[in-house]
């Protein structure tokens, strides 16, 4: 927000280079004009033509890149006033002089997270290095250390690579579709009056609230070859959606998008509502199209929210389990619809190869950890203070 308040007013800063805002076409448009005039040989007609649409875009990009180095110190300064213990010892709030109190408050959380999250992660890694099957679980045979043997077996397995590829492609498709639908509908929500907005909001909340299991069964019924309305409407006869690999994935994708776009929509909508309306009004007065307003004004301002939403979607869609398990009946015909999560589950609990399942879990963990690190870097670049 503070980004907008320290933005120079259009009239007060006439210099074209200072036009940080996209709603200042006069500045950038005026800037290229003297250049062809100064060059007698250059054709004056075509040069300002392509240059003037391009230059507002160039300045419009700047706010997107700007918040990092430019906006962050000021927003940090704005925030600092409200934070404890930052304005020197005199400004410290009584609560901030904690000593051991913060650790006392943190203790329950740390115990629970340590015991039920960190320790299992350690165990997961450990099991993935052991020989651990039904015999070891029941105590019939001693557990033996395998080193990287499980991973070697896994990486030699062709099915693993196939499943990994399917997981990545499927998750990417889910994320892109969810974000596109969610953002488009969030913008749509801002363009309509109360009644359609409420209708769409309630429908989306309903989809959001639907548990994954029930959502899966309902979508199966909708696309049922015998009794489903979709095949009747589309005139597909008794075409089975879950028989073919790709149409089964497409069906699951539809369900996943249906139940996860509301989070994106609601969050982005809340973000758009927080954008001062004068900015949008000014942009539309200057004749910016809807798409242009989104790309040059809203998207840069919503960048922090979009980053959060994207990363959350990546994480959720990468570990889809219930939908695949229920809709394709445990991974599809001959495992054609397996994703990593279901694959690990099948390995561990269906065929009792706990160590192989754990190795798959470790691979998933590492991939998501990499995504998290990217996320942290993006947050840092935005200058977000933790």
């Amino acid at each position, binding site marked *: 927000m503070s980004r907008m308040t320290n933005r120079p007013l259009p009239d007060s800063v006439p210099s074209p280079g200072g036009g940080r805002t996209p709603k200042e076409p006069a500045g950038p448009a005026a800037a290229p004009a003297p250049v062809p005039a100064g060059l007698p040989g250059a054709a004056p007609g075509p040069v300002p033509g392509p240059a003037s649409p391009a230059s507002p875009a160039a300045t419009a990009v700047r706010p997107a890149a700007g918040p990092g180095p430019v906006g962050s110190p000021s927003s940090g300064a704005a925030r600092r006033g409200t934070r404890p213990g930052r304005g020197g010892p005199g400004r410290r709030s009584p609560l901030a002089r904690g000593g051991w109190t913060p650790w006392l408050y943190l203790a329950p959380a740390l115990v629970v997270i340590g015991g039920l999250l960190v320790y299992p992660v350690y165990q997961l890694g450990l099991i993935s290095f052991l020989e651990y099957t039904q015999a070891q679980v029941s105590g019939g045979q001693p557990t033996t250390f395998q080193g990287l043997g499980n991973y070697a077996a896994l990486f030699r397995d062709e099915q693993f690579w196939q499943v990994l590829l399917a997981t990545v492609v499927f998750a990417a498709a889910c994320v892109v579709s969810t974000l596109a639908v969610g953002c488009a509908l969030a913008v749509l929500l801002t363009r309509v009056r109360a009644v359609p907005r409420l209708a769409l909001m309630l429908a989306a909340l309903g989809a959001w609230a639907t548990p994954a299991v029930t959502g899966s069964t309902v979508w199966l019924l909708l696309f049922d070859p015998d009794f489903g309305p979709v095949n009747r409407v589309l005139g597909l006869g008794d075409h089975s959606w879950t028989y073919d690999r790709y149409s089964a994935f497409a069906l699951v994708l539809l369900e996943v998008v249906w139940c996860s776009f509301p989070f994106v929509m609601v969050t982005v909508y809340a973000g758009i509502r927080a954008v001062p309306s004068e900015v949008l009004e000014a942009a539309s007065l200057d004749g910016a199209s809807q798409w242009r307003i989104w790309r040059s004004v809203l998207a840069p301002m919503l960048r922090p929210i979009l980053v959060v939403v994207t990363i959350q979607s990546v994480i959720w869609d990468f570990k889809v389990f*219930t939908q695949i398990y229920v809709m394709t009946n445990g991974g599809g015909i001959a495992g054609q619809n397996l994703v990593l999560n279901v694959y690990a589950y099948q390995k561990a609990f269906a065929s009792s190869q706990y160590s192989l399942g754990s190795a798959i879990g470790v691979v998933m963990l590492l991939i998501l950890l990499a995504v998290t690190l990217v996320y942290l870097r993006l947050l840092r670049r935005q200058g977000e203070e933790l």
Partner: protein
Amino acid sequence: MSSVTSGHSVPAATSPETRNSVRPPGSAKNPVRRSVRNLVRRSVRRPWRLAAEVSALLIAAVVAFPLYWMVLSAFKPAGEIESTRPRPWTLSPTLDSFRRVFEQQEFGRYFLNSLVVAVSVVVASALVAFLAATAVTRFRFRFRTTLLIMFLIAQMVPIEALTIPLFFQMRDLGQLNTLGALILPHIAFSLPFAIWMLRGFVKAVPEALEEAAYIDGASRTRFLWQILFPLVLPGLVATSVFSFISAWNDFLFAKSFIISDTSQSTLPMALLVFYKPDDPDWGGVMAGSTVMTIPVLIFFVLVQRRLVSGLGGAVKD
């Protein structure tokens, strides 16, 4: 600026008088002209807005359609569901499917189990997260930033990947086949996100309030529970939506940890009893799905407004 407005306000103040007494038709021209201008301006924008509103309503209908079909199928008589000409209405709604669901299995018990799990997770994680969020926002201490980053990373840990070690851990704790095996991991998994989200709400409470409380002689505990807690409560409610959903919807843990004692089963598992891939009892599945979805829907509608503002606050910071 002020002189301009006052200059306008003078004729505006006198106009009602002239309108009433002297020239009714002439004065009526003014609002008419204004409304005409509005009409012209609106009709320029209107096709777009109309298109937007129509498409919003259409999309809402499409999004709501699966839910509608679910409820509809739950009330349809068996012959109508399993017909090759499905109709989007029913003329003879019946409770047969619901009756079948509640009779055939211990569905009520499963419902209660699910409720126990979800409510325990929500309450426990809300309290623990509130304390932790207070610690990381209101205090400065060593490793604070490190801890926050750890919470963020912990939030990314795929719950599903840990099923195998958790299975053995629950076995060692003697929690297999009990609801504890579902409650404990879900508390742990919902905490990092809850703490992360609550930060914004705790931060929003002004510090002056804190100082005033101490000047008035309130102890730290008293401030925490009697002043800060009620103020953060809306945020807690918004946060609890997520822990409620993850606990209520949990399918994998219920499937993996409740293996032999079906009396400890939860709703998602019960639902699949009716769903046999070869010959599903669609009526039963849809009735069970309806029963399972309604509590979440109620919860959502209750916290809807807070959810929107809460998400905005948490994400925007």
